[in-house]
């Protein structure tokens, strides 16, 4: 097993990996950019090394600096987390070239699955259905027009190197195609230094269901069941759960989708952990979307239901151990659900809300797990994604897990940045959500039918008294943390009053 592992990431996932390492009595090395000097992952790790200036290209995407840090600290492996360099085959190869173990699949597997077009070809050969679409990036507008017409609108534009919704656009008509390609391509260029986008048919009312796979270096491969991630906003997952409510009703589909995922993994000689994403319609058809050759943000829901520690499993596999269990040993117990707590304002078009966290209380208690990357007094930088923490709950069934999350949300308190915490309560109380009738546009529809939030005379009196007490106490919050652009606040309030 490794003695010391460098974590080439930041935020909650870097903290998550520090914890797994400490659970295994392995030393950890954190890396940081200048704005992250005081970040939680740096505080918790055994050792830490500065990478550079805040922009990702100069810090968390700087391969040379990361390898130098690993050498300087005597690390023998690198865990890439998710995002940043986690799906970069060049980085995986550079690690190996420097005598370091990359904790993930081989550079060759990343290459074969990392390009979405190559992955589709591989899936088709493995007899796994794919959504109809282009095999080549949409570089020429006339080709793109012809293809979109042939597929039939609506179509979806996707970044070839993408993930997390960056560089993705729905296009409903030919008139929108040109500007949508331009926007998607520039967003992809910024996010991944690769502006290639391709076009596919949009499957209507699909669920996003993904299969967690695990494989060792000796060809043993198995799946750890599904996660349903249909609740997305701008193609970013917001709430994830295991089991999928749809698979709970159609239990034979878990094995069927699991087997399809493993056929792709076998074809790519896959080792370590990965996730095969599918779109599923309500009739039992499912289509391969892509493979994420890394740990997923939402991995905790699988951990809570299977009782496994997926980061520890990654470390064991990377260190050359065999999978310590067989497919028939995998059990799924109860229900788990995750909310991605983000610094964004649901009352103001979900605009990002970086800034200093003046106060923070995270929930705890039975069945609650919080994977957080922040602390009171921490300034959330504007350079990186807005995920603050993942609130995850486990309970014997879905109704109880929803109730537990509502309880935890009532305990959760953040002052200083706006968060989407209150929005989760709206989701969890929604009748359609509770009935498990999910699809990838669910949140867009929910947002369209949002009602003004509850307000009682008692709440108004509490608000009045709280503000009066604050003004007579003097301000406990520094001036620069005061509310931003009042016009946006007024707009939000205007909506509330209508």
């Amino acid at each position, binding site marked *: 097993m490794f003695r010391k592992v460098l974590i080439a990431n930041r935020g909650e996932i870097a903290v998550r990996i520090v914890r797994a390492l400490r659970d295994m009595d392995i030393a950890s090395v954190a890396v940081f950019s200048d704005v992250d000097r005081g970040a939680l992952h740096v505080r918790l790790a055994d050792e830490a090394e500065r990478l550079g200036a805040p922009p990702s290209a100069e810090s968390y995407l700087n391969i040379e600096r990361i390898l130098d840090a690993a050498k300087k600290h005597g690390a023998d492996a690198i865990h890439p987390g998710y995002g940043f360099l986690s799906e970069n085959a060049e980085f995986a190869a550079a690690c190996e070239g420097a005598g370091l173990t990359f904790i993930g699949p081989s550079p060759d597997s990343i290459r074969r699955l990392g390009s979405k077009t190559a992955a589709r070809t591989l899936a088709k050969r493995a007899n796994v259905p794919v959504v109809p679409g282009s095999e080549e990036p949409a570089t020429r507008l006339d080709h793109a027009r012809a293809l979109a017409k042939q597929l039939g609108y609506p179509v979806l534009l996707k970044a070839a190197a993408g993930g997390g919704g960056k560089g993705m656009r729905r296009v409903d008509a030919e008139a929108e195609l040109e500007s949508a390609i331009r926007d998607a391509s520039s967003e992809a260029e910024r996010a991944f230094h690769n502006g290639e986008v391709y076009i596919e048919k949009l499957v209507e009312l699909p669920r996003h269901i993904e299969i967690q796979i695990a494989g060792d270096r000796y060809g043993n491969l198995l799946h750890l069941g599904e996660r349903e991630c249909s609740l997305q906003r701008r193609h970013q997952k917001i709430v994830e759960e295991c089991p999928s409510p749809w698979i709970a009703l159609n239990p034979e589909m878990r094995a069927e989708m699991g087997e399809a995922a493993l056929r792709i993994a076998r074809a790519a000689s896959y080792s370590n952990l990965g996730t095969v994403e599918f779109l599923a319609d309500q009739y039992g058809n499912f289509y391969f979307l892509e493979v994420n050759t890394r740990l997923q943000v939402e991995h905790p829901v699988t951990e809570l239901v299977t009782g496994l520690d997926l980061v520890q499993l990654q470390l064991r596999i990377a260190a050359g151990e065999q999978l310590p269990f067989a497919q028939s040993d995998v059990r799924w117990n109860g229900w788990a659900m995750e909310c991605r707590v983000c610094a964004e304002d649901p009352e103001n078009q979900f605009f990002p809300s970086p800034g200093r966290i003046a106060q923070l209380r995270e929930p705890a208690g039975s069945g609650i797990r919080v994977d957080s990357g922040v602390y009171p007094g921490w300034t959330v930088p504007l350079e990186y*994604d807005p995920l603050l923490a993942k609130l995850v709950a486990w309970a014997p069934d879905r109704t109880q897990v929803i109730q537990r999350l509502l309880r935890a949300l009532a305990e959760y*308190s953040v*002052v200083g940045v706006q968060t989407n915490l209150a929005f989760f309560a709206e989701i969890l109380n929604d009748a359609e959500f509770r009935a498990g009738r999910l699809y990838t546009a669910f949140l867009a529809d929910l947002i369209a039918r949002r009602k003004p939030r509850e307000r009682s005379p008692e709440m108004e009196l509490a608000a009045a008294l709280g503000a009066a007490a604050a003004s*007579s106490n003097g*301000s406990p*919050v520094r001036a620069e943390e*005061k509310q931003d652009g009042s016009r946006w606040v007024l707009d939000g309030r205007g909506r509330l009053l209508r």
Partner: protein
Amino acid sequence: MKLQVLVDGRAIEIDRAQLEAAAQVEPGVFSLLVNGHSFEVRVLPGKPEARVEVRGTRFAVEVRDPRSTSSTSSARAGTGRQNVTAPMPGKVIRILVQKGDAVSAGQGLVVVEAMKMQNEMKAARDGRVIEVRVQDGDTVSAGQTLVVLE
């Protein structure tokens, strides 16, 4: 002594003695007992209104100081000049209009990127661009004026 408090524009009169129901438990967080019910109230001070959150619902609360006579209710720009401001800190990555352009409600003006998301600042109503105050690549702070419309 009485205090006048405006909660989302609605006047509520409170007695200073009632403030005993409020206990500051953490920075910006007050525990309130109202009719025996327990509320956590989060207060972000501001002028003239504080932003207050109770059980996920937000209120704009203005506490009128009895010593001061000025009761500046914030002016709402209905017509006339309108400053389009950045709602959060970020970087200007695209400017979609020029000085003199006529714009219609909902039209994109400037694209600001923060936390890896691109956000298009749109015109709230029809008008004309009389000033563009930022350039491509500028870093902007929350509340900074990007474009002035009339």
